[in-house]
């Protein structure tokens, strides 16, 4: 209540920000909560990245060197979970928090307290998950952390899951609650808080893609909650959902999981499409080519994502009609995705291109995401998927779309909007080093995975046949190179947070359009208290 009293003492136009710890713990400010999300996701990116390096250290040479296979399994599992739920998703939610109100001329998110709740659930949920890993690491593998892969297939996670599986289940419940509340907040903000004149078809594409992402989140996170609840009762209360002896089926788990899991993939990539659609027009100094078709393409991708889930399960066995349906539906997604790539390229066509840091990352995104998309098209073909399934080809595919796709676009967004967030330009020298090192190392890291995968190297194993040794050495070199390169980004962010660098103007990028560039840099604590009018 003191906060309320203090506030009423100075309800003048200066809008003093609250100070100290309370500012962050009790926040109802979309910018502060966005900042919390972004730093949290960055921390998780480092933790998950460290786990990836443990994996690559073990796989650098054939044979067992660094960790035992049991701990290796825990690393692959928790690396995936942390990167999906802890790094990529919170990063895009952080961007949504910061940018959506600024882009649509709203004073804040629609439900600011729920917004803060969405964030603060996450550190506790990941404390549980990472706590399980630490207990395992310092307890010599006993108790074991979750070790069944990030997809936690039954019966590995039910009958054979370690004791920590129950902690994992409840932490997934917490992440789900956080995601659903965050997504509802985004939807309501976009639908109910737009400034007068900001019609739906005038919204920046980042807002559109996030609106559709939020719809996907509200639709599929409850399904995930259902899946993990069934796991919990199968483990402890004698139900038979995933147990054929009682009339259930482990394959049922895969269906439910991937009904969540495939839209989840688009939850991670659709905001990236929005980011790139903001950056490329700025540095091409042209309007986005085919705005309306971008909106419809995004919506098509989202709707199709509900009817493609079983392409993750071709080798599991299902009726031929089912296989064909899921194969054709999956290939259909490449049409709207192709529309997007075409539009980005057409936006650049005969534009006045310059290649500032955000543009470099966005271009790398377009090229490398397309690589990942094409290998996805290969995986969609049922007959050849029998060869590729569960090999490093799959690992190469989804790391191309998630690392050089989603994460590169998040870097692009950070370099693009850091001036707005911090008021100083990101350090160009460090930024260039970060970009070129990341670009080269990410390809050294993931491209050879295609080759070893096509040659038959299975994923999720702690060891491999001698024939794969050379490529794996290079892959590991790429991994450590990429990992160390990210320290440069730490430096860039810390410098910006300490306000060290060239002062940023309100609109630091020449060709940039949008409401976010009409407010000063750094954006004041409160913006658009009175809604702007959009012509």
């Amino acid at each position, binding site marked *: 209540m003191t906060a309320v009293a203090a506030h009423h003492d100075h309800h003048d136009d200066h809008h003093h920000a609250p100070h100290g710890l309370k500012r962050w713990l009790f926040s109802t400010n979309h910018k502060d909560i966005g900042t919390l999300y972004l730093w949290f996701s960055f921390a998780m990116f480092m933790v998950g990245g460290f786990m990836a390096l443990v994996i690559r250290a073990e796989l650098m040479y054939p044979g067992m060197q660094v960790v035992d296979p049991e701990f290796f399994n825990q690393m692959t599992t928790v690396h995936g979970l942390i990167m999906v739920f802890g790094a990529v998703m919170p990063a895009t939610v952080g961007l949504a928090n910061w940018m959506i109100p600024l882009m649509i001329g709203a004073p804040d998110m629609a439900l600011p307290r729920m917004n803060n709740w969405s964030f603060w659930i996450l550190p506790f949920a990941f404390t549980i998950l990472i706590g399980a890993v630490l207990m395992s690491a310092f307890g010599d593998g006993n108790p074991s952390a979750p070790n069944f892969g990030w997809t936690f297939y039954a019966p590995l996670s039910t009958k054979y899951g370690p004791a920590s599986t129950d902690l994992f289940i409840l932490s997934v419940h917490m992440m789900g609650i956080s995601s659903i509340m965050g997504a509802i907040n985004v939807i309501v903000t976009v*639908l109910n808080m737009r400034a007068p004149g900001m019609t739906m078809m005038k919204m920046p594409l980042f807002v559109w893609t996030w609106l559709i992402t939020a719809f996907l989140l509200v639709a599929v996170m409850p399904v995930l909650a259902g899946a993990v609840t069934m796991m919990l009762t199968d483990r402890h209360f004698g139900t038979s959902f995933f147990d054929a002896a009682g009339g259930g089926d482990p394959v049922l788990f895969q269906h439910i999981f991937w009904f969540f899991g495939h839209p989840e993939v688009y939850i991670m990539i659709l905001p990236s499409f929005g980011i790139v659609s903001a950056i490329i027009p700025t540095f091409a100094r042209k309007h986005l080519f085919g705005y309306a078709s971008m909106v419809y393409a995004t919506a098509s991708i989202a709707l199709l994502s509900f009817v493609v889930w079983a392409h993750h399960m071709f080798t599991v066995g299902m009726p031929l009609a089912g296989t064909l349906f899921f194969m054709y539906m999956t290939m259909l997604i490449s049409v709207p995705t192709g529309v997007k790539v075409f539009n980005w390229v057409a936006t650049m066509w005969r534009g006045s291109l310059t290649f500032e840091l955000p543009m470099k990352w966005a271009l790398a995104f377009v090229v490398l995401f397309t690589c990942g998309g094409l290998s996805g098209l290969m995986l969609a073909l049922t007959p050849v998927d029998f060869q590729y399934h569960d090999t490093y080809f799959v690992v190469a595919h989804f790391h191309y779309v998630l690392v050089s796709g989603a994460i590169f676009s998040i870097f692009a967004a950070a370099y693009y909007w850091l001036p707005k967030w911090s008021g100083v330009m990101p350090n160009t020298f460090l930024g260039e080093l970060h970009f070129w090192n990341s670009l080269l190392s990410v390809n050294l890291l993931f491209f050879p995975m295609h080759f070893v995968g096509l040659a038959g190297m299975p994923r999720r194993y702690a060891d491999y046949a001698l024939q794969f040794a050379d490529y794996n050495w290079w892959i590991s070199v790429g991994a450590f190179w990429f990992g160390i390169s990210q320290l440069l980004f730490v430096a860039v962010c810390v410098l910006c947070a300490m306000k060290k660098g060239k002062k940023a103007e309100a609109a630091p990028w020449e060709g940039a359009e949008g409401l976010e560039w009409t407010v000063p840099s750094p954006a004041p604590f409160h913006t658009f208290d009175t809604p702007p009018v959009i012509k």
Partner: protein
Amino acid sequence: MAENSSKYYVPESSPWPLFGSIGLFLIAIGAANFIQQSTQFGQNTLRADGTWGQYVLMAGVLWMIATMFFWWRDTIKESLTGLHNEQLSGSYRQGMIWFIFSEVMFFGALFGALFYARWLIIPWLGGAGNNAMTHELLWPGFQAMWPLTTTPDGRTTQVMGAWGLPAINTAILIVSSITLTIAHHALIVGERGRLILFQGITILLGLFFLSLQVYEYYHAYHELGLTLEAGIYGSLFFFLTGFHGIHVTMGTLMLIVCFFRILKGHFTKENHFVYEASAWYWHFVDVVWLFLFVVVYWL
């Protein structure tokens, strides 16, 4: 902020979101430990030795209830002092609609599991499609049927019929939806007496439904042998009816809170979002029950 803007209301900072997260944290680690200590793998034997999980779980639940109490107290206070406006009310409404949509998807997953089991798993285990060898080698004596009264490994149960208690319960829920609509209408036209009466009747119907469900579970466990362990039919039966029952409980609690707020005169013709949200929620659990009655009990 409210003073500066003709249109927007941004609430003051609040400790309750953080407290709510701590509550969820306590519930999660308490529940995980409690479940592990009190059940054995694959069977439902309770071991009554002292564990810390139950205390942490209990503390978490109490903490959560207290947090919600204080959070809503603040919100109600702000609403009554007129800080809320049309804009915020619209946000609340849309937020509630999307929350109900997420609940629909949760039940969708459970219904999907039911159809998958009924139309695919059971026939396949019985040898349908190209599964003749699976049937022959795994459980050759297994007969495909729905509801599954004998599992592949030989556990048996009886079927819960549709036209006894479940039909009565269906009638109760439909009537409760009607009485709630009458109450809502009374609120809008300002007939306080009728509002209180029909709100009370709706709550009683909800409680009556829940007690009949408890009785039905007792009947299932003690006379039909229909338990959580009775194979996929029992699993799905208790999952669908159980989660529905939890939702009816939450709905009834919401209606009870609304009842007391009606007595305190909190709701006006224009400003009664919480009442409306509770009513939507109640109609939602009602519709879920209708689906459930058809596919779980009847067909």
